[in-house]
């Protein structure tokens, strides 16, 4: 009961803050709102019993990826957005309507799923027993055992993806020598 109320509150706040985020004048305000949304999502993961995902969300998303966003916004010194007084085009109207339809569809499907399945933290996959003895406190070990046995291929591919990202970041940054004017 309390879980459902908390989930509802967090969900509504996350959606509201996201809508707020895309309509702000200053880019830094949008970045900070996104950080709060990330923390709310981590809280929702925690309520679902995915404790490792919650902590990983804060460490990686809110603590690393958003740092890059904030650094880039501050380095580029983006000016605040000006309010645009103009007509709303047909394309924008169609896209907004499409967005509402997709949101409605997802909402009803996810709502059906939540009512039907049994979301507790005792087992990750309903069709097979967990690797460690099922208790309320073995989520991280179960995720770990699963990742390195069943999803090993994805894990090793991630290492290559990270390597590509490292090389790509350096190539892009080193090529931008034009803007490497004032060093710290």
């Amino acid at each position: 009961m309390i879980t459902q109320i908390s989930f509802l509150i967090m969900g509504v706040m996350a959606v509201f803050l996201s809508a707020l985020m895309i309509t702000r004048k200053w880019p830094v305000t949008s970045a900070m709102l996104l950080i709060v949304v990330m923390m709310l999502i981590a809280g929702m993961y925690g309520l679902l019993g995915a404790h490792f995902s919650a902590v990983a969300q804060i460490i990686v998303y809110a603590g690393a990826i958003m740092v890059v966003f904030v650094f880039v916004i501050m380095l580029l010194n983006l000016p605040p957005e000006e309010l645009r007084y103009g007509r709303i085009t047909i394309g924008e109207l169609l896209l907004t309507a499409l967005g509402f339809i997709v949101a409605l569809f997802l909402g009803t499907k996810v709502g059906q799923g939540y009512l039907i399945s049994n979301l507790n933290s005792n087992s990750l996959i309903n069709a097979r027993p967990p690797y460690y003895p099922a208790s309320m406190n073995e989520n991280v070990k179960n995720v770990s055992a699963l990742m390195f046995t069943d999803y090993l291929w994805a894990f090793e591919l991630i290492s290559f993806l990270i390597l590509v990202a490292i090389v790509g970041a350096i190539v892009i940054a080193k090529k931008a020598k034009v803007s490497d004017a004032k060093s710290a």
Partner: protein
Amino acid sequence: MEQSVYYVGMNPYLPILLILIFGLALGLGVSGVSLFLGPKKPNSSKLEVYECGLPVTSSAENRFSIKFYLTAILFILFDIETIFMYLWSTAFDYLGWFGIVEVGIFIATLSIGYIYVLKRGALRWD
């Protein structure tokens, strides 16, 4: 398991949320108290931007080094590696030598990336 009772307290995430809100209130409150209790004497030199007491020279020519961006991107990538390390280390007993070999491949691939970063000099003078 019919008769035994399992006692639960509050959801463990709730104290974190409560203290974050409390910290927010404390910070804002303490700053606000100082705003009320202190004197208010504005004068023109207080209201200018501080640049060692000299008049403000240039305002908008802000070209900063790209190394900050590079440091932050490399931090994300190594942080993701650290997350996987945390994950592996909890199930160390279950995964045994097989797990060590798997994670060894992961660390080796990332070390190639790290050595590339060092050779390209992306982390120098920063």
